[in-house]
């Protein structure tokens, strides 16, 4: 152990053995990390391999690759797919949050929600039309938009239906990504929508924009014009490269902080109006029915939320040791102000370290050192955003919303760790 650490450093700051987050800054703290059983981890060494002088040090390596892929040893890190058996393009794929670090989601692991498949769009035949309450309707080709000045948003996109298993009577037992993974974080680059709308000349009486995609459901939603003028972009790039087909190639709408369905993929049409169209996906779906019989509609904003990604269900502890508890926090209303972690089911809390950069409407990675003594524990994380909003406990959320709302579940998640080091999802 490093001479920088003292016995005082290892004094818990909250129940269950949580240590002060300053320990993350010390060089000498050796952190164990819980690992998924079976799926991820280092393959056993080939018995014939000399660890001091392995074969790959004694022969030329592979040649260059025109487009790189993950190591074949990481091939099991993939999206989990849940789709309609009769309509395989209707469903979701979840980002494997339990297998990822940092704040950026690799483009190939970005979650998907499609209503009727991924269209194979030829960019030369794709157009974006801006019309309705405008001075001059305009049609833009993809190559036109590539010549416009661009801006980037490094933001999360979260499906309004993410984490909906949290409404279930019994806690679902799945890896955290297959429960909370309809969220991903990318750098999106494209043309500020205000530039295009200005060129069309918006009627001062207009208040709404109907956005529509070029997929097989011609998915449409109504959006407040003021927000779109403020910071929306027509994105053409994701994480530096052109957007992938399943994420909207050749272009999608990006609306920072708004629920996923509003970030229309395969964007083809923007109709400027003075009323919402009342589309199926803003009335029958993506609305939340409350116990009093009334329903919340146009719940665009994503409220603050966090989840511990390690340790998490289906990962396993390696016996009493010092561990790093780590996870993700986010808010569609701005920056994350703090994340607190509990190891005793919420009886006591300690503030986690937030890893820089902490950006508005973006994933924020949090970390918490933990001295686990091998006894049962219940881990929770609780996010607070810069508006002062505090992520609610599950019973508080359900008291307010009931269990039939389906969308916008953002309650605190609880992971139980037993004396054998197995992790499971509990309501606590």
């Amino acid at each position, binding site marked *: 152990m490093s001479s920088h650490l003292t016995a005082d450093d290892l004094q818990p700051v909250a129940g269950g053995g949580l240590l002060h987050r300053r320990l993350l800054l010390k060089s000498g703290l050796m952190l164990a990390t819980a690992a998924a059983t079976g799926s991820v981890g280092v393959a056993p060494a080939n018995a014939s391999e000399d660890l001091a002088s392995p074969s790959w040090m004694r022969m030329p390596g592979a040649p260059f690759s025109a487009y790189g892929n993950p190591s074949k040893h990481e091939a099991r890190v993939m999206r989990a797919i849940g789709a309609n058996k009769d309509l395989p393009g209707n469903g979701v794929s979840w980002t494997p949050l339990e297998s990822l670090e940092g704040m950026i989601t690799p483009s190939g692991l970005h979650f998907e929600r499609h209503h009727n498949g991924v269209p194979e769009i030829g960019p030369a035949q794709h157009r974006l039309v801006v019309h309705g309450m405008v001075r001059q309707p*305009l049609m833009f080709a993809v190559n036109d938009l590539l010549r*416009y000045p661009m801006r980037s948003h490094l933001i999360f996109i979260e499906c309004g239906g993410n984490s909906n298993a949290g409404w279930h009577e019994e806690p679902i037992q799945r890896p955290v990504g297959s429960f909370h993974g309809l969220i991903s974080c990318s750098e999106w680059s494209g043309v500020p929508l205000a530039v*295009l709308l200005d*060129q069309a000349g918006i009627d001062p009486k207009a208040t709404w924009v*109907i956005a529509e995609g070029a997929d097989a459901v011609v998915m449409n939603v109504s959006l407040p014009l*003021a927000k779109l*003028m403020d910071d929306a972009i027509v994105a053409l790039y994701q994480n530096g490269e052109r957007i992938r087909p399943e994420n909207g190639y050749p272009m999608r709408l990006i609306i920072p902080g708004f629920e996923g369905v509003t970030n229309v993929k395969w964007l083809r049409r923007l109709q400027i109006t003075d009323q919402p169209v009342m589309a199926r996906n803003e009335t029958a779906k993506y609305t939340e029915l409350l116990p009093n019989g009334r329903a919340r509609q146009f719940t665009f904003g994503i409220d603050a939320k966090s989840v511990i990604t390690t340790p998490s269900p289906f990962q396993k502890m390696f016996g009493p040791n010092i561990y790093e508890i780590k996870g993700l926090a986010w808010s569609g209303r701005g920056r994350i102000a703090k994340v607190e972690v509990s190891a005793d089911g919420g009886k006591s809390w300690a503030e986690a370290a937030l890893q820089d950069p902490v950006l508005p409407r973006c994933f924020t990675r949090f970390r918490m050192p933990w001295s686990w003594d091998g006894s049962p524990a219940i881990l929770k994380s609780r996010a607070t955003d810069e508006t*002062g909003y505090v992520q609610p406990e599950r019973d508080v959320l359900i008291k307010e919303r009931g269990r039939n709302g389906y969308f916008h579940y953002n309650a605190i998640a609880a992971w139980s760790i037993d004396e054998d080091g197995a992790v499971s999802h509990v309501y606590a």
Partner: protein
Amino acid sequence: MSMRDRAAQPHLSSSPRRRGSIQASDERKTEAWMDPGLRRDDGVSRSVPARLRESLLLPVVLICALISTFAHAADRLAAPHLGKPMTAGEAAKWDLSVFPDGKGLPEGKGTAADGKSIFVTQCASCHGDGGRGATAEELVAEPQPLTEAGASKAIGPYWPYATTLFDFIRRSMPAGAPGSLSSDDVYAVTAYLLAANGVISETDEMNATTLPAVKMPNRDGFDWIDVKH
């Protein structure tokens, strides 16, 4: 109401779970996007919303808005004009929207009787006999209070607008061949589903005049959260 009074009104419904915020942070909640009526309304101060510009109560928002104004203004000055002008007629060919007031509805007509055979051949394999749900969602349910646990969100009990059926069916259904139904077919299937839910009678004809006049039972059951009426 003066501009200043209007600007002082909250733009976002308050949540009892919000707590402990400081004033400067709270003001971030009054972002322009919360209110679709809050937008620039002249050609002089190009992108500072009028209500924000005249508000002395939201200095933090004003400063943020000014910063973004400079960024946008630079974009607008620097951007090429590459959009190809379209006539209103050309743009109309792209327009699939059907609004609650009937705007966008095409000519055509249909009744529940016409729609039943279309539903059986084109829809029932996924939505079940009579629209009671199968691999695709339930569309038809008995009238029931939405206050019951697990209340149905089928068309009759939940959907607020009848025009939504036409808008959605025409653009999205049937899933195996979207866009393949004629306007008469879409009116007919719409009539069938409305009649099966007891919202209209079996003999009512749905057309561009009658469909927007249908008042759904849950028409007034929705509260807008992040945008004002």
